[in-house]
């Protein structure tokens, strides 16, 4: 039997020597990033204010070209377009998903809401812009919301709704919000930096119906749904959010400063991406 085991061992020893690795890490969103003005005029710290987090592995950080730390860019090729940051890999913590009503296109991020009532409260009370159905009437309660979703997606359980369920972020000991991430199939380059940014939702106190939207989501594209309106599309993220993030970062968004703890020197490193730079809002804390 011993020779057989040896042969088996030889077989198991096949090593692909893949340049790509899965990078596991943590992203930390400071409490200040989740502290926004509510409809009633008070500010509150609410994890539902955390927009999608875009994370990428980059060659370095450029602190000069923009008013915030940005990944190192290549040269400008096309006029009016910034240089490409050529990410080695990336992922998100929270992504855009369509939540059944046209009025919610490009306003809902996965991993932020646990159930329908949670969403109704966020849009209605916190933002002051109640969710409206496709006829313009306010959505009364969670059951109505649920039924609309079941009808729209031909679904029969809430587990099929990507935008509901487990929350990505939990409060850590420092009072900041922390989430784990996996960046799969990322080209490992020694010394690469994991950099990320959070797209903060727009808060427009003067006109609450405009609140809740995101600059990195394009309302005019995405899956077309023509039951009521042949021009209606569900919205989708811009496909170059990690390549030229400066096109979508506006004042109010939070950005990682590229600290040492986010640098990856070995595939087993567990980088910590701290979004500690508030663009246009000053430093955290």
């Amino acid at each position: 039997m011993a020779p057989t085991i040896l042969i088996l061992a030889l077989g198991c020893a096949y090593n692909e020597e893949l340049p790509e690795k899965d990078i596991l890490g943590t992203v930390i969103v400071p409490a200040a990033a989740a502290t926004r003005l509510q409809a009633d005029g008070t500010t509150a710290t609410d994890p539902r204010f955390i927009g999608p987090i875009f994370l990428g592995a980059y060659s370095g950080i450029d602190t000069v070209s923009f008013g915030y730390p940005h990944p190192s860019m290549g040269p400008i090729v096309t006029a009016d377009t910034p240089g490409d940051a050529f990410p080695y890999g990336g992922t998100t913590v929270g992504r855009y998903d369509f939540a059944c009503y046209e009025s919610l296109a490009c306003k809902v991020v996965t991993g932020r809401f646990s159930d329908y009532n949670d969403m109704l409260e966020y849009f209605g009370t916190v933002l002051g812009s109640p969710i409206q159905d496709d006829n313009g009437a306010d959505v009364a309660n969670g059951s109505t919301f649920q039924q609309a979703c079941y009808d729209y997606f031909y679904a029969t359980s809430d587990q099929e709704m990507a935008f509901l369920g487990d929350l990505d972020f939990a409060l850590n000991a420092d009072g900041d919000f922390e989430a784990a991430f996996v960046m799969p199939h990322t080209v490992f380059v020694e010394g690469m930096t994991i950099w990320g940014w959070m797209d903060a939702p727009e808060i427009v106190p003067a006109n609450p119906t405009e609140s809740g939207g995101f600059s990195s989501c394009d309302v005019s594209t995405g899956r077309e749904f023509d039951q009521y309106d042949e021009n209606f599309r569900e919205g989708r993220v811009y496909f170059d959010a990690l390549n030229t993030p400066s096109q979508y970062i506006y004042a109010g968004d939070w950005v990682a400063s590229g600290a040492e703890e986010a640098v990856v020197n070995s595939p087993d490193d567990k980088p910590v991406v701290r979004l500690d730079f508030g663009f246009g809002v000053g430093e955290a804390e």
Partner: protein
Amino acid sequence: MRTHGNLALGALLALSGLASGCTNVRDGFRPVLTDAPFVYDIGELRVIGAEELAGVDPSTVPDAVHYGQLGAGENAGLYGGATFQFRATGSSVCVVVDPEAMFWNKEISTQSNTVQYKFEDIFEDDGDLDLSAGLAAYYTGSPGSEIGDFSAVYDDPAGVEHELAFNECIQTGYFGDPAHAGRATVEYCDIDTSLHSGVMYTAVLETFALPIDDSILNFGALAFDGRCADLPWYDSNGALLAGASECVIPNEVEYADANGIPEEKAWFPELERAYCSGVGKVNTFCKDNPGAGCQSEEEL
């Protein structure tokens, strides 16, 4: 020993079978090799201005307007093309290539017959060239021997190389994606040379498809000082119009061939003038000249 003998016999049997198989490639589908070159370099073309182009027969200024031919290569999988260089003017330059001959699709519209082509194009004479252009320094091909593209390498701070595309001749398609025009269709683009005045640019005309009638692709090419929308040309009534089109470089079938226009394509100049003058003129020409570049009336 008998063992070896029979092994050899078996091997011979197998090899002879293979040998007969190897010659059984259906050559009828390959483009035919002709005298037309697979890859060649036109050289430098003078960037021609509007006044000169409007006042001259384009075939009489070979240093500015080039008529040429391209043919097939040995390897069926690869196509070649032609290249030329021009000097940046410091403002907009319009690069134009017009491959043989003309192509229209009779059935593109269900609207009224007056705006629809009545006669089908004879498409066997159509070839396709794809245009790209950029700074000569970024060209990766070897003019005259190998067609390449425009790229440069960027080394990021971690030492990883990335290839950047530097083709400045941007043409977009139906979805706004990078695209090229189809068979026999003129391709053109505006190059903004304001940042590189006096610097040499290369234009690449890559063969996408050769005409299936004779595997020779006649074409014309030029570089124009100005915007493509301002390119002058004359219609069949002699009126001077502007805007890059099939008509800017006339008669590529005649002028590209050293022996003049082949007899079987004698209809080309007149059909091209009709084509440049609208659908109705094409319908009239085809009706009066059945088989001359378009299907006859019987085909309807």
